[in-house]
């Protein structure tokens, strides 16, 4: 029995998942630009980005007030807001919604923090099942190398410092991301991930993604999904909202 209800809207939902440094954000951004260039109405939704919840999350992080349970719940609240106000109405209207992280991030991350698997799966039961879920599989060391090379500091909760895994931020980050990776791998079959080898070149990964989109959604994209006629494309500003 699938956990999430199937997408019954005109539009489509494509999500990317993977640990920090897996390159998923780059890939979903490339994919959404490509879909837009094909004339589709594309909307983009990012994890932890609801303006309604932002202040609370910021307060909690700044003062280190979160427990595993409240951390999980505030992210679910954020997700619910984006779902109710943005993702569902746009899918109803026939848009392709691209999400950088989805409920599966909570399945992995909250469980890595010690929240019960069953509870967190129930918590997100209001979410629509994506039409496509890509999982960017990457060895821990490669991902960590990318993160440490690209940014100056890993944040407290990102590193799982709230769990006192280690006093050293990098070491804590490594242990925590390792646990998240294990959870992703364990759920791959359950949630039907399309697995992408995230050690390949950016171009190769993107080609694979597009092939999968065409193969899996090709025909259904012709019916119902909002699309501009090629002639109209220059007339209308194609910039889209990002939430």
């Amino acid at each position, binding site marked *: 029995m699938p956990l999430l209800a199937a997408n019954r809207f005109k539009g489509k939902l494509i999500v990317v998942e993977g640990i920090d440094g897996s390159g998923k954000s780059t890939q979903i951004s490339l994919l959404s630009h490509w879909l837009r260039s094909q004339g589709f109405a594309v909307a983009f939704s990012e994890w932890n980005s609801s303006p*309604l*919840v932002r*202040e*609370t999350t910021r*307060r*909690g992080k700044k003062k280190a*007030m*979160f*427990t*595993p*349970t*409240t951390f999980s*719940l*505030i992210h*679910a*609240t954020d997700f*619910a*807001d984006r*779902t*109710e*106000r943005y993702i569902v109405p746009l899918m109803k209207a026939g848009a392709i919604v691209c999400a950088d992280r989805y409920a599966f991030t909570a399945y992995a991350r909250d469980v890595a*923090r*010690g*929240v*019960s698997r069953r*509870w967190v799966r*129930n*918590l997100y*039961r*209001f979410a629509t099942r994506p039409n496509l879920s890509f999982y960017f599989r990457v060895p821990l060391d490669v991902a960590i190398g990318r993160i440490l090379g690209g940014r100056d500091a890993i944040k407290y909760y990102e590193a799982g410092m709230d769990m006192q895994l280690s006093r050293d931020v990098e070491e804590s980050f490594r242990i925590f991301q390792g646990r998240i990776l294990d959870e992703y791998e364990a759920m791959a079959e359950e949630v039907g991930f399309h697995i992408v080898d995230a050690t390949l070149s950016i171009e190769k990964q993107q080609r694979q993604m597009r092939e999968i989109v065409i193969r899996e959604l090709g025909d259904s994209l012709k019916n119902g999904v909002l699309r501009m006629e090629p002639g109209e494309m220059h007339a209308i500003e194609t910039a889209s909202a990002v939430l």
Partner: protein
Amino acid sequence: MQLKPPLQFYNEFLPGINCEELHGKLIVIEGPDAVGRSTQVAKLRQWLEQEGHAVLDTGMARGALAGKGIKQAKEGNTLGPITMTLYYTTDFADRLENQIVPALRAGFVVLTDRYIFSIMARAIARGEDRRWIEQVTGFGLVPHAVYYLRADVRHLVSRVVLGRGAFDFWESGMDIRFGDNMFDSFVKYQTKLIRALDVMAKKYAFITVDATRPSDAIFRDLQEHISNLEIKRIRNTPWINATVRARESNGAKRRAKS
């Protein structure tokens, strides 16, 4: 009042909380809007403190983490029903872990104005899935007593009109617009809330108190019940799952041995 451990969770253990350490008493006052809960909480607090008990009183959206955010969200016009449910649940979890549990550890009497049951009732009244919300809030501790102040909608309406003199947007469920004006919406929404609480009354062993009577009479009832709480501990609520029962009987065996 002799205070005895342990309390237990409904169907989900919270990481990092050992129920054996919780020596206080957890008392819940539930009921629909405007039924007079806060008056009773204030009276009970005064009385319990005179009796020498340390009292913590808490209620919805009063947590340090999410209280402010909820108030702000309610001032806007974009708060959806699932989002609202989860925001309140976030606040509840924050208060449970950071106020209620520490107070119970220290042997306080915790008086709470509303509990998971109001969160559930509001969700159910808005058409959300009952099993979903029951499981989401399943990390709540089973209280020693839940007093359900019950009144019919007519009584609530008269309390609102005679008391505050105006209907409140959220108490009227105007986010869903159950009617085309505040009065009609209030009546429909509060009827749904009362129905949802009535259903829970059996399942969660509420002690139903007729709240259409004068507040002193209600208070005397509550006093009498609470004085007897020591022997009237709620055990074996049908809700508690097998793991909890197993844990309980293991604990009982251990206690028997020692």
